[in-house]
Every structure is written in C-alpha cells, then in structure tokens.
C-alpha cells in the first residue's frame, strides 16, 4: 500500500469504469442460414433474471411448437444495464443483421435501445417493457408491444382500490420510467387521498427505511410496483416488520416465478394481470400444459408474454408470406391474427394491446402458491396515450 493513495484512487476509478458488470452474454448461434433472424436482448443475470428467463423460455417454446427451424434466435444477457443492452442491439443489427429485436424487460433499457433500432428499419416486438413515451409521442410504426402499456395493470389496481373502500393507500415504485408510469397509472384511476408516495432506487434490496415510513404514515393499504428481486425483498422484509396492512400490486410481484420466494406472506394478496394460468381458453390450456411439460414448472406472466410475442411474429410472417416485404409484414402484425393465451387480442392504433385486465388473488393449490382470477378490473382497455401517438 506504500505506493500511495493516488494509485489506489486511480485503480478504483478504473474498476468503476469497467462497470463492475458481470454480464457474460452467451450467444446461442445457430449455424444454419435462416430466413428470419430474431435478436433477443433480455435479463438473464442479477435481480431480474427470472423475468428474462421466463420470457426466453416462453418464446422458445412457441418456436419449438411451431417447428420453426428456419427461425434463428440469438439470445444475449443485458444484465439490466442500459449500456450493455445498447451494445448488444448494435451488434445484433450491424453484424448479425437481425430482422426483429425483442426481449427487453426494463423500460429504461427499452428507451435506450428501441427508438434507435426502429429508426434503423428493424422491427421491435416488446414482450414486456411498454414505457409511456413509446406509446405516445415517440411511437413508431415498427414498434409493437404484445404485453401491455406500462400503466395498464396499475390503472386496474387504482380502480380496484377506489371501488373497494380503501381511503388511504401508501404507494411506492422504483425511480425509473416504468415506476413513474406505474404510480401515474394508479392515480389515474384512484383519485382519493394518499397516505404517502415514494420512489425507491431501481434494484434496491433493502426496504427497511421505506417500511418504517409506511408504519409512520399509518395507511389502510399498500400499493407497490417492485418487479423481480426487489418485490421479493420487499415482501420478505414486510412480513418481518409486524405490519398487517393489506398489500396490493400489479401481477409483477406476485407472479408464478417469485411466489415461492415470497412464501406465505403473499397469501390472499390481490393483484392485477392481463393473464392468469386459469384463464379459460384453448390456447392458454395448451400453453400451460406444454410449458409445464417442457420446463417442469408453472408458467409465469412473463412466460405467457414471451410465448405470445413469438406466436404474433410467426403468425404475421405466415400471413405476409415471409418478411421480405416489410410493409406487408407490418400490416400483418397490426392485424395480430394469432391465438393469444389471454383470449381475444387486438392492437390499439399505437400498437399496444386492447385487453381485459383481471384481478387475481394469491391462493394455495396443494402446497404450491399460485394465482386465481377473482374479478375483472378493466374491460377492453387500451391506454391513455393512444391520442398522443401520430402515425
């Protein structure tokens, strides 16, 4: 250590410049020439890994079922870092010459990648992130979201809170585009008083300070949007805090992939979702059975979104007779003529779904925690940004 402080600080700075990232994207390069090349940028490591894994697995299941051996799927891990996502996108577009990009989970990554990619003439089919900017002013003919617009599930829960006698909810979300969309969406349909409203750090895993604030504010309910590992940490710590206020949220923190981790603390929690494994339609029944068969676990919301995204692409390619004619392919995407696992599916004019949002409750089936639909939150709902999108 005698070579002193300056050296140490320089070296630390170099460490920081390397980003301390642990991304090791493993590209799965299929050798044969394919007439459709899809680049999937998704989160396969860190706190959001279960989301990306489920999207990928759902997507691959759909390709496998369709026997689409002429589709080449490249998958890389963005480690939830916008700069890495951007690098992968550039590589996919320039070197691998992909036709379609997909897979991004997080809205800040989507904002870093999508606007430039669609301008380059690539199609982007989002299986998850649907930030308000891309639904409104920055919408683009080549951008489609097969899952939802970010606000949707939160809007439905806002309405549920409004209609079910809650008078003083405490709301919290991470400080990034989807977090802001979440609380905005909630407040669009819940117009009463709030016990408190906080934004937390994205990727935060310790919520002790926030839980103390909630205790101090004495709310009658807690609405939170904390996707992935953040929600697991929050619920585990909440269960230890001795607080007994009912917890409400979008499906993201009570979905199949993480219920096992949250454990009994989640029982009875109401959450909103456009999909549930007990949705009664043929496509969904086949999907749930096939997913369980293939991967040995129940599918999650994210798996259903990956599955729908792949099926949308395959159906549009079939209808347009390939993707050589981009205008025909785009038109086929707009028509969205595929069997969605959530039942009837259609796009609003800004390429985000018009759909029912259900209210689910966490229940126990045998010794597995899962969700059951208990009501409909919003019927045939589009999103608040349709009129801002001029295309």
């Amino acid at each position, binding site marked *: 250590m005698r070579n002193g*402080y300056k050296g140490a600080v320089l*070296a630390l700075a170099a460490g920081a410049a390397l980003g301390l990232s642990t991304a090791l994207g493993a590209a799965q390069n299929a050798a044969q020439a394919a007439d459709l090349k899809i680049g999937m940028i998704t989160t396969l490591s860190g706190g959001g890994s279960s989301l990306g894994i489920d999207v990928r697995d759902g997507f691959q299941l759909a390709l496998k079922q369709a026997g689409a051996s002429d589709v080449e799927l490249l998958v890389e891990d963005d480690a939830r870092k916008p700069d890495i996502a951007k690098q992968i996108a550039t590589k996919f577009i320039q070197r691998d010459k992909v036709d379609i990009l997909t897979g991004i989970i997080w809205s800040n990554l989507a904002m870093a990648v999508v606007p430039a990619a669609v301008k380059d003439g690539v199609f982007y089919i989002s299986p998850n992130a649907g930030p308000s900017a891309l639904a409104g002013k920055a919408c683009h003919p080549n951008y489609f979201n097969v899952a939802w617009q970010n606000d949707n599930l939160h809007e439905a829960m806002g309405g549920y809170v409004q209609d079910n006698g809650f008078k003083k909810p405490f709301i919290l979300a991470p400080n990034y585009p989807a977090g802001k969309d979440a609380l905005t969406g909630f407040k669009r349909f819940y117009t009463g008083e709030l016990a408190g409203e906080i934004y937390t750090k994205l990727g935060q*895993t310790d919520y002790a300070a926030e839980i103390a604030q909630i205790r101090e504010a004495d709310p009658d309910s807690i609405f939170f949007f904390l996707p992935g590992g953040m929600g697991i940490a929050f619920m*585990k710590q909440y269960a230890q805090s001795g607080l007994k206020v009912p917890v409400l949220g979008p499906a993201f923190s009570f979905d199949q992939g993480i219920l096992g981790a949250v454990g009994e603390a989640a029982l009875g929690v109401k959450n909103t979702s456009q999909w549930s494994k007990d949705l009664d339609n043929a496509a969904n029944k086949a999907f749930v059975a096939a997913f369980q068969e293939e991967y040995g676990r129940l599918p999650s919301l994210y798996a259903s979104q990956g599955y729908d995204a792949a099926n949308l692409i395959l159906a549009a390619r079939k209808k347009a007779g390939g993707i050589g004619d981009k205008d025909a392919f785009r038109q086929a995407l707009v028509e969205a003529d595929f069997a969605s696992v959530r039942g009837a599916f259609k796009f609003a004019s800004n390429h985000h779904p018009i759909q029912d949002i259900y209210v689910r409750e966490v229940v126990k089936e045998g010794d597995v925690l899962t969700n059951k639909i208990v009501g409909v939150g919003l019927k045939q709902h589009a999103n608040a940004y349709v009129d801002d999108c001029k295309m």
Partner: protein
Amino acid sequence: MSAAFLIEQLLNGVQLGVMLFLMAAGLTLVFGVMGLINLAHGSLFMVGAFFCSWIAGQTGSFWAGLGGGFLAAAAAGALVEVLVIRRLYDRDHLDQVLATFALILIFSELTRWVFGDRPLYLDIPPGLSGAVPLPGGGGYPAYRLAIIGAGLVTAVGLYLLIARTRLGMQIRAGESDREMIGALGVDIRTLYTAVFALGAALAGLAGGMVGALQSVQVGMGEPVLILAFVVIIIGGIGSVKGALISAVLVGVTDTLGRVFLPQLFGLFLPPSEATSVGASLSAMSIYLLMAGVLAFKPKGLFPVDA
C-alpha cells in the same frame, strides 16, 4: 414525526452500517496488509450467501447454513489467494483491478453453473422472525437486531484479534514493513493466505445474513462492494476502526437521506417531483459525504500511517 420512527430509522442505518463493516473489514485488511485491491470481494459475499442458502435448504437449519457459508467463503478465499492473488502482490493496482475483475466474471459463471441461474431463497430462522416492540410504539424486526448484534460482536472479536494476539501483531507488523517481519522468520505466504481467508469469511458471513432478507442471486455482491469501497475510503485505508465508524456513518447517511431528502424537497416542490429529485439526491448522499470528508481529511478519518 414520532420518536419511534426516528429510532427505527437510526436502527436501520446502524444495521446497514454493520453489514457494510463486515464487507469493508475484509477489504481494508487485505488492502492495508498486502496493498491489494480486490474487486472480487463481492463475489466472496455471494459465495457465502449461496452456500448459506443451499446448506440451509439441505439441512433445514439456518445456523448450519450460516456456518457453512462462513467456511465456504473462507475456503474460496484461501483457494483464490493461493491460485491467483499471490501472483498480484508485486504488480501495480491496475493489474490487480483487471485480474480481480476477471475473478468476478469467473465466480459469477461458476456460481450460475453450480446453483443454476434462478435466485435461491433463504428463510429467517424461526426464533428470529417477527418484530420486537420499540419504546414509544412501533416495532423492529428481531432479525435485524440480531444482525446488529452479530456485527458488533464480530467487530470486537476482530479488534481483539488484531490488538491482542500474536497473529494480530504479525498482521500489524506486515502493514508497516513486510520485508522486516519476513526477516524475523514469520511465514509471510501463510500469513497472507490467512488474512485473505479471514476477509473472505467476514464477507461470506455478511452474505449469509443478508441472504435471509433478500433473494440470493448472481451479482448480489457488486452493489455492496461499491459501498464498501466508499466506506474504506472515508474510514482511512487499512484501518479497521475507521471501517467500523465510517460504515455506520455511511449506513445512517444513506438511510436518513432516503427518508428525509424527499420530505425536504416536498416543502417546496409538488410531491411526485419532490420524491423523484429527493430520491436521486439521496442516492448521491454517500458520495457527497465521501467528498466532504476527503476535502478535510484527504487520507480518511483514521489514516493508518498518519
């Protein structure tokens, strides 16, 4: 604002600080004694957490898991020291950063290969679940109190080890003059391996304890590592006492910043902007603290070679 609220937030800050101390203690020992910058310290934290939750899952006992995580991290530390780190002591810091950065990637991939790429989970031991009532109303999770206790006991133990034992004397001597203690017949190679394994074990202990609060996942050590670097820079590189005091300082600053800055901005901004600006500023608060300390004490609060 009630007194219970303030007490609860201070406890939260101290608990975070104690965790950071366990990370920073190992880092600062290794840096102080061997002059080595180890970016892979966070990986040892992760190894501790993974083994803790895996062993706890197999045996059904959290305590067996915690002990196993501690030992596994120590073993991983010793192994890494013998195989890799040993070759880096005489290189400059940039080489050390590069090599230990590579270790992060190797550890992450290995962990994913061994334990799979989905997060593991660890439940709080039954005896420590639930909340303890605080004076003036409210409650505080028993498990977090136990973490504070365990951290303070470790701090005292480490102090005694360094101040009162033969090994500690050798460690302190190694900090000031490594050639001289080598000439006095101390086996430097073994000493360094032992110090490195001790640092790794403390990180592993921290990982196991934190694992029960969050999910155990690949890459979980990196955010903590950055905070731990801030801690040793504020505390003074090489000083264990400095690490303890600065860890608590950083923990309390971070916690209180997160709580009160948004409220402060709420006085003159609309709520959504205030929480947003306050949240961003509170994320910077510990770096501002670091800058403030370095402006007055460029070598940290407790410089070793002052």
